[in-house]
């Protein structure tokens, strides 16, 4: 017990130290805004990749849909804060919160009922959930529009900066909930597929999301998202502080999850589905849990990302980019959280920073020639990731105590 709290202290102290150092460097101007942006991008990547690591590294489900949920989180959060800062209306926030909350309640309620029904196939369950959530979303648009003036006047009563931060935080959190709910609906029928087919279906999801975003103004009716021209005018609210807070929160949540019985069950699904089933683990259930939580992190990261540069473009959510978190978690070592954090920052620093700034003159176009070469070399030299399965003490799995000698002896004597 004592040792664990010591490692916790080390972890929290270390993160605080890193944050203070970086924040001082940024505030004093030693790190200019370029590097500040890169650090925040790396931080966002940490959150997406930890989510994917949960799905793929720890649960073993080969998902390429992470980037789609990231896009959903980004655009949903951006839309809410845009409506608040430009249109001075909290309608986006109210509708998003209502819709996600009502759907969450409905999903949980239905889940409780439906999981008792024997023999219900995932596609039928999906149809029920889909109908419920679509109806509730339509309902919450109606209620939300009625509630908007009240909430808007309440928020405008607050000082502008504080109101903005509140809207921002709620937008980011509820966009993540939205991403999680969509992942639940989508994951329900899809998670039953075999691993490669699951990967391809999720890749299809990412591409569909990207295409919808390309046409967000004409087809979805979100004029302010401006479709393929890219959304501009999103308030730049994601500071180093928020990125760090969310990274620490995500790491702690993941770590505690992995140490719980839920985490063990999730891990056992990766190791051997048949053995896990034989141990009485509901495989489908734990796949969904890992997938939804991973997508929640993706949505969270998306919300943070949207408020870094202040503009969003559907090309950012291209399926080619959707391999980035996959590359990061493989480099960091599958299943390793330390490795993911390390590799995310390394990825951002190398790809966005070093290769952008330090390629010799006339070789700027070589950035994406050097990057895959680095990728290949690292992969060929260290196929299990740069750090392998190294973890800092705080994140290490607590292994069961080895059995004592006395307990073993009778068994051996019997044999």
């Amino acid at each position, binding site marked *: 017990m004592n040792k664990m709290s010591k490692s916790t202290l080390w972890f929290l102290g270390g993160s605080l130290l890193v944050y203070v150092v970086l924040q001082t460097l940024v505030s004093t101007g030693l790190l200019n805004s370029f590097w500040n942006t890169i650090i925040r991008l790396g931080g966002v990547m940490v959150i997406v990749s930890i989510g994917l690591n949960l799905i793929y590294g720890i649960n073993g489900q080969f998902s390429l849909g992470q980037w789609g949920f990231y896009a959903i989180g980004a655009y949903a959060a951006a839309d809410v804060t845009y409506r608040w800062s430009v249109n001075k209306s909290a309608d986006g926030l109210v509708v998003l919160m209502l819709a996600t909350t009502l759907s969450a309640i409905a999903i949980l309620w239905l889940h409780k009922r439906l999981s008792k029904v024997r023999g219900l196939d995932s596609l039928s369950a999906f149809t029920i959930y889909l109908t419920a959530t679509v109806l509730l979303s339509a309902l919450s648009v109606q209620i939300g529009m009625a509630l908007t003036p009240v909430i808007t006047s309440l928020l405008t009563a607050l000082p502008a900066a504080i109101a903005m931060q509140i809207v921002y935080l709620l937008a980011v959190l509820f966009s993540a909930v939205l991403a999680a709910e969509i992942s639940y609906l989508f994951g329900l029928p899809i998670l039953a597929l*075999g691993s490669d087919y699951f990967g391809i279906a999720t890749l299809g999801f990412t591409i569909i999301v990207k295409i919808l975003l390309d*046409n967000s103004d004409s087809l979805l009716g979100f004029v302010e998202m401006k479709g393929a021209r890219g959304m501009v005018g999103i308030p730049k609210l994601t500071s180093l502080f928020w990125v760090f807070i969310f990274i620490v929160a995500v790491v702690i949540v993941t770590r505690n999850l992995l140490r719980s019985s839920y985490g063990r069950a999730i891990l056992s699904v990766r190791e051997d589905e048949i053995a896990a089933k034989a141990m009485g683990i509901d495989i489908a259930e734990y796949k969904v849990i890992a997938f939804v939580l991973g997508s929640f992190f993706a949505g969270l990261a998306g919300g943070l990302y949207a408020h870094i540069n202040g503009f969003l473009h559907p090309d950012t959510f291209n399926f080619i980019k959707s391999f980035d978190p996959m590359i990061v978690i493989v480099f960091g070592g599958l299943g390793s959280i330390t490795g993911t954090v390390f590799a995310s920052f390394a990825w951002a620093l190398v790809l966005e920073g070093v290769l952008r700034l330090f390629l010799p003159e006339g070789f700027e*176009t070589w950035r994406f020639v050097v990057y895959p070469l680095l990728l*290949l070399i690292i992969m060929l030299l260290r196929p299990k990731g740069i750090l392998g399965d190294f973890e800092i003490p705080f994140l290490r799995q607590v292994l069961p105590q080895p059995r004592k000698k006395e307990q073993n002896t009778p068994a051996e004597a019997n044999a």
Partner: protein
Amino acid sequence: MNPTTPSLVQQVIQKRWLGKAFILLLTLLAAWRIVTALLENPTLFLQQVVNGLQLGFVYALIALGYTMVYGIVRLINFAHGDVFMVGAFVSYYSITRFQLHTWLARLAPGLPEGVVLVIGALTVMAVSMAACAILAIVIERVAYKPLRNAPRISALITAIGVSFFLEYFAALQFVFSPNFITYKRPIQVVTWAISPNGITTLGGGNAPPEGSILFSNIALIIILTSIALMLGLQFIVKQTRIGKAMRTVAYDKQTARLMGINADAIISITFAIGAALAGAAGMLYAIAFPQIFFWMGIIPGLKAFVAAVLGGIGSIPGAFIGALIMGQAEVLSAAYISTPLRDAIAFSILIIVLLVRPTGIFGEPEREKA
């Protein structure tokens, strides 16, 4: 309640009616749209089907490479679409820089033009096929072979790396340049208007007759070449010793080695054959849509990959059927549902097919890994 007659709710659950109803609803919507389109303007509809066929056959050639490689090493070879791009560029340079499509005319000036063109175009195709085959063998040896015993994801990441590398290396100014390049067709386009009254050749400004379907020699060439190449592939896989070895390695690599088969060589050959088909597809695609650029491989590659999965990855007839479906889905949804959403619809079809048949149309159920 009498246990022999389950209640309505139980029946709905057991027979999976809700899910089936959902899928059926989607299918009916699509079918209704297609039928109304067909009744509204049958010629336009048939024209779209012809266009879809042309596209589908090109996808089929690419899809075969994906499906063969997946069948033998269980690797989604993301670089395959870029090999296709290289094929298009090689054929472009052999036409513009080396005038390879007219070599026979320079050698023997008296020959009729038709013969020269056919031999020339076939030579260009052979050159790009060979170039792609060599490229694929190099890629396989350098990037995939060292990782054969590593986790599967490592090989997938290297495949993505190779894909990036090919794209951006091709985009360098001294390689293929980052510009859109207009492709020079080795053959003239001849368009025929097929109507109930007979076939007329278009050209010289005469308008196609009322109610006719346009069919170009390019569509004909694409369809015939693809069929020929696919028959050739079918012959190699089913009739030759190499094909037998390929099937053996795909079934069980360890046992194949014990039977004296050089598994590594067979894997290289599989990559080479798949890439050669992609090279031919690159040239055909460029003839049909004469604009080539370094990113041209991504979207057709992806579509072909989806086609391979749709048909059941690892199955050669599956890839063919899947590609035809993808071609039709793309063209018909662009024409009748929504042009910007056509790719989304293609992927939705993929997801729906996977929900109904989890391993694709012709796919075998996944074997339990020993």
